[in-house]
């Protein structure tokens, strides 16, 4: 039996776990606390992972910190929904607002590799217009990035993650062929396709970050279906099995079970390193640059918690926008029952998709959304039945008997940025003695209009394929964004297009926090693409002596 990954750090003594071999190790360079490393990166997920690897490969000395453990996928991931909750950031938080968010699996991860260890692998590109949504579409805010440059980085990210996607993608400008072919559609995905065809909409196999043929040490997906949990075969191309091993080979150090609690800023107004908690004590790591990549709650929390005399409102917060404009994505669903067996739990849950309403602007609200086929596992399904329909006892039991016949569609919808939706610090303290985040969220009228539109459309699609006993799951949300938005103007943004903070030139933010708008697709591929771009930009700035 492997040692408990939570009991003590695994990446120590000059080695880190080899995620591809049971009990295996790979060599790892290690730095002393009083070494001044070039970069201390806080977070190892979709944003931190590619940046750590990219910077290490460029020759910088880098340490990646993660508060979570260093899992061994072949040994640590049981086929058990409850056991897998260990992958989420379930530390205490305060949630409020008119529509308080449910924090956990849908919007966080606490592990080396971040939430990509359990993400659903859906790897979509933004619609190009979203990078100029204020100018072109009239809502939200413009990004300081050009979509054509992003198209280049999307291509690189797709290659790095061996995305398995359709031979031709039906929406948006031309994109290069996906590195791997799409997976076979399961019953639920075929029903989405039939519904979309009945409504005259295009559909396609969803581009997924799980390989459909061998890649390196990853075997092809075995369609186990535990896809929104840890993948125990390494078919899922999470950061843990892609960029993190690359980073180690390039000489980066990963510190697992290392919670960064504060960024130190010196009298010159520059960051000097990070205070982190590991193995029961607080230590300080010197660094020339600090990158925060903790996602939309932990990133503003750390910036706010690092306030000092010089920066009393928190770091990088001269605009007052740190923590503001938090966005989630609407994740409502419509479910029904088919006469024939569907067995929606087979394979990845989101095998087909329609992005119709992301590319169709004739509607009376701003923003877009897509929907995907669904395959909730039994515990999640029972939870939906109890929370959305209030079923208990015999009624719940009877409903669960229909599990093999049930089908569903779930949206990923764009919510608009609103300064009232925000992350602040509560007075409660967590196990590290740090003030916990207060997450305040309320849906706006536009958000509600979009959700209602989507629910009607998804219901129509299910009715078109003959589903009966249709019901709506109306209150679910998932991915996060915002809270440290990027922009062209220091007064209205926290970081610039290079993810560099306007206020402190050696402090960077590189995760979903920098999104000015969140778009109507899953954000991970965009985060990874931006992180790869940021690594390139830092290399370029260093060459020019502008670092």
């Amino acid at each position, binding site marked *: 039996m492997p040692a408990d990954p939570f009991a003590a750090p695994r990446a120590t003594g000059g080695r880190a776990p080899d995620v591809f071999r049971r009990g295996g190790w790979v060599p790892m360079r290690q730095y002393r606390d009083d070494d001044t490393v070039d970069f201390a990166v806080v977070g190892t997920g979709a944003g931190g992972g590619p940046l750590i690897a990219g910077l290490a490969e460029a020759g910088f000395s880098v340490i990646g910190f993660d508060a979570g453990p260093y899992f061994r996928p072949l040994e640590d991931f049981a086929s058990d929904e409850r056991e897998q909750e260990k992958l989420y950031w379930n530390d205490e938080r305060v949630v409020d607002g008119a529509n308080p968010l449910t924090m956990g699996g849908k919007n966080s991860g606490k592990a080396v590799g971040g939430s990509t260890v359990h993400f659903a692998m859906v790897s979509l590109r933004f619609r190009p217009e979203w990078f100029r949504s204020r100018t072109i579409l009239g809502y939200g805010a413009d990004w300081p990035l050009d979509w054509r440059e992003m198209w280049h980085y999307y291509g690189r990210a797709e290659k790095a993650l061996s995305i398995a996607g*359709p031979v031709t993608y039906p929406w948006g400008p031309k994109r290069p062929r996906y*590195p791997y072919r799409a997976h*076979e559609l399961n019953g639920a995905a075929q029903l989405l*396709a039939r519904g979309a*065809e009945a409504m005259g909409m295009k*559909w396609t196999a969803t581009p997924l970050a799980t390989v459909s*043929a061998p890649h390196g040490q990853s*075997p*092809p997906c075995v369609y186990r279906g535990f896809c929104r949990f840890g993948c125990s*075969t390494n078919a899922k191309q999470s950061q843990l099995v892609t960029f993190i091993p690359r980073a180690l080979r390039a000489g980066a150090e990963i510190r697992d079970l290392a919670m960064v609690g504060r960024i130190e800023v010196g009298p010159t107004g520059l960051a000097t390193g990070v205070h982190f908690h590991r193995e029961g004590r607080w230590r300080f790591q010197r660094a020339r640059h600090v990158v925060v990549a903790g996602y939309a709650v932990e990133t503003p929390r750390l910036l706010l918690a690092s306030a000092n005399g010089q920066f009393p409102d928190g770091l990088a917060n001269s605009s007052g926008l740190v923590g503001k404009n938090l966005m989630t994505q609407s994740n409502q669903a419509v479910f029904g029952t088919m006469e024939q067996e569907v067995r929606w739990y087979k394979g990845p849950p989101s095998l087909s998709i329609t992005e119709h309403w992301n590319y169709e602007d004739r509607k009376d609200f701003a923003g877009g959304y897509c929907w995907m086929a669904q395959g909730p596992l039994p515990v999640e399904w029972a939870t939906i039945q109890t929370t959305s329909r209030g079923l208990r006892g015999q009624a719940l039991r009877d409903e669960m008997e229909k599990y093999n016949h049930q089908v569903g569609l779930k949206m990923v919808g764009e919510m608009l940025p609103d300064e009232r939706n925000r992350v602040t610090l509560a007075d409660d303290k967590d196990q590290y003695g740090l003030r916990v985040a207060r997450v305040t969220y309320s849906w706006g009228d536009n958000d509600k209009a979009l959700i209602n539109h989507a629910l009607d459309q998804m219901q129509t699609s299910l009715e078109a394929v003959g589903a009966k006993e249709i019901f709506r799951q109306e209150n679910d949300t998932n991915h996060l964004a915002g809270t440290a938005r990027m922009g062209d103007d220091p007064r209205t943004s926290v970081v610039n297009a290079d993810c560099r903070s306007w206020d402190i030139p050696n402090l960077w933010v590189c995760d979903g926090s920098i999104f000015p708008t969140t778009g109507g697709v899953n954000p991970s591929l965009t985060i990874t693409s931006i992180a790869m771009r940021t690594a390139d930009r830092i290399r370029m700035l260093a060459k020019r002596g502008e670092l």
Partner: protein
Amino acid sequence: MAENQLTDLAAPGIALLGLGVLILSRRRRPTRVTALPVLAAPPVDRGTAIHAAKRLNRAAGTLAASVLADSAVEHYRGSFHNKAMFAPLVTSALSLAVSVHGVADKRPAAHWFRDTVYVVAGLTGLIGTAFHIYNVGKKPGGMSWQNLFYSAPIGAPAALLLSGGVGFLAERVRDNKPGTDPLIAGLPAGRVVAAATGAGLLGTVAEAGLLHFRGAYHDPFMFAPVTIPPVAAGLLTNAAYGPACSNRRLTRWWLRLTALLGFAGTGFHAYGVARNMGGWRNWRQNVLNGPPLPAPPSFTGLALAGLAALGLLEDNPDG
């Protein structure tokens, strides 16, 4: 999960079978075909014709063995949910058996039972191809890449068509009057078999190309079946239309290379099985899930037929 199988597209096989049916009623004439560029030379002796026929029986048997193993694995995987899924197992087994019989048979005349089995096998392949096309077409998206990748493989039943077709041609070559050149439908047998085999090879290349594309050519050796056999097909087609009695050393060696590739392919596919989760320790899942072990020898079967045709072309002035 419909799975990779190898083999051919329907068209060449159907053409081959059609040709075979056409000539069933034809009598061989002792005259030369003057439409083809041929050199005057003495007629072929009976022993040579029988030797060539036996080689074609062997090729038909190799194809049948490939189909038997492949359809057994893949249709088992499909739980034989349709009774018709047993058909290729029965007919390919019979085709294999009569091919063995043909290889051992030294007599000069065609055998009615072998003929019957080869025709039935060919028809089964034809109907199977239609079934598989229907299977692709009924999925959402119709004839799309996605469905060509994952539905019943269109090319697989065509291998049975080819087995029946090659076997049928073997019988025609054998059924040769003493003192005449082997003819099929009035055409020199070597040329007919060479042309048909060339087309069959190209069909098989198309199937391998499709399924290796689905595998994203993740291993560079996956390019081998889409580069080596097309050259063999080209050389063979060239031989089919070129002058007879010339020594085609390159063609012969290239066909031998293609025959070898068929066996090597099974080795590569065994490695592919090992790269699936659990490798060979988990063989009961991965033999079904990984690249199909019995598929690549289809190339061997076709290359053997090509070599037999080449023998006829080289030995005979006319065919």
